[in-house]
């Protein structure tokens, strides 16, 4: 391994002192350019994520979740269980909320995929849902939060009349172990009232 790839601890320390809140990060790959050499059973696909086209090589078995996180560097969507039992991996596909861990990247060419990174406006203005989650303390550890917000965004697009009970039921595909549920309901109702 060449020296240029070895970051010294001094580099790490320099990185950390610059960070206001987050601790030091190891060097992180940006959205990967397609590997020039196809390996094994990898196929060449194009994914439309947050209105941006990404070309990538993936084995067919790569889930949409892992393609987003590991190949495209969009780590906002979380892997909570990898088996469709928690909702942390929720993304929108053509405006509908799904669990990205139980679908394959290769199945979504031509689909419009929205992740948490695409919820705020490009200029950084938070979506009313996001503002409401902050205001209502709809999160603690924050791990389930991207899934909650994207799920709520999907819910808001479903045309239901939203009251407390309906939101509770319709958000039950997103588990929160910190126990924020009533605050999540508050935030969703706030956003529904505003939008």
């Amino acid at each position, binding site marked *: 391994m060449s020296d240029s790839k070895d970051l010294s601890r001094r580099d790490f320390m320099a990185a950390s002192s610059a960070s206001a809140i987050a601790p030091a990060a190891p060097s992180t790959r940006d959205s990967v350019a397609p590997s020039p050499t196809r390996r094994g059973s990898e196929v060449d696909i194009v994914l439309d994520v947050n209105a941006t086209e990404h070309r990538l090589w993936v084995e*067919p078995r790569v889930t949409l979740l892992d393609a987003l996180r590991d190949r495209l560097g969009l780590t906002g969507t979380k892997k909570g269980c990898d088996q469709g039992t928690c*909702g942390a991996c929720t993304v929108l596909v053509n405006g509908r909320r*799904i669990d990205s861990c*139980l*679908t394959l990247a290769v199945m979504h060419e031509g689909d419009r995929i929205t992740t948490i990174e695409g919820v705020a406006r490009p200029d950084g203005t938070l979506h009313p849902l996001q503002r409401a989650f902050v205001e209502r303390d709809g999160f603690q550890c924050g791990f389930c939060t991207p899934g909650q917000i994207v*799920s709520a965004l*999907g*819910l808001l697009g479903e045309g239901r009349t939203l009251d407390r009970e309906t939101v509770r039921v319709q958000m*039950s595909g*997103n588990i929160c172990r910190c126990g924020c549920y009533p605050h999540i309901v508050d935030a969703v109702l706030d956003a529904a009232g505003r939008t």
Partner: protein
Amino acid sequence: MNDFTFVKAQTTTGAITAVAREWGARYVAGGTNILDLMKDAVEAPPMLVDINALPLREIEWQQDRFVVGALARMSDVAGDPQLRGAFPAIAIALDESASPQLRNMASIGGNVLQRTRCAYFRDPATPCNKRDPGSGCGAIGGENRRMAVLGTSEHCIATHASDLAVALAAFDARIEVVGTRGTREIPVGEFYRLPGSTPQMETRLAPGELITAVIVPALSYSRRSTYLKVRDRAEYEFALASAAVAVDVANGTIREARVALGGIATVPWRSPEAERALAGAPAERASFERAAEAALTGARGYGENDYKIVLAKRTLVRALEMVTAP
């Protein structure tokens, strides 16, 4: 998960041909069941044929029946206003399944074919005659709280997991399938096999056959139907017990009824015994309790699931009360 070849089919013929060519190849629609099983290494198909481009998503009211395309998503079917009005039990069964995200992903055909949640089936480290014929049944004598009390054998007590299939059973739905030999319809009551001594054989689909539609024949009293699902927590859980019922009541007397039970049997459990007990009976609790006794005749508990015999009866009684309430 194993590596596999991925093929995107554009036509039904193309899909069937692709699967027929590769032994062990499977169709993938929503993916919520097959991919889950592959992650657990319960299934390892060498090829997946993506059938999502096939034109099988329509929900149509024809003269005397509903035809639901096999690729229609659970949420779309649940939300269809005509279906909700005509067959509330089906809509409710869908509404109460899984989670909103999974309902948006999962197809009707896939739901009907979903495999059991039995913990031993899903854990290759434990014996399971369904997954590995001859290896034994880990659930018998083991952790069997969620397992079946009807339709079991000494080889398998795995509960059938689909809520929708229970409602379809109550309404005498038919499964339309297409294979290399053409198209046929299989009544739901014949579609599923009891485990018997061959629990690895779950349906009467021939190898490579593709479900293309679910047909629900009209029933004059289908509007007076419901699906009641009982579980530990309020949402996002498989049934401990469930009941799909439809009742034709006139002047306080039940002319005819449809009863199917879920969460407690190895296949969706249509109950002619309960239906016979209800026919001609007054629409009151005593009748419902008699029907429930009849429905659970022959039920057998395996230790941790004994409660299901009582719970299933009460669930059925409650569902009948709900649907006959003024």
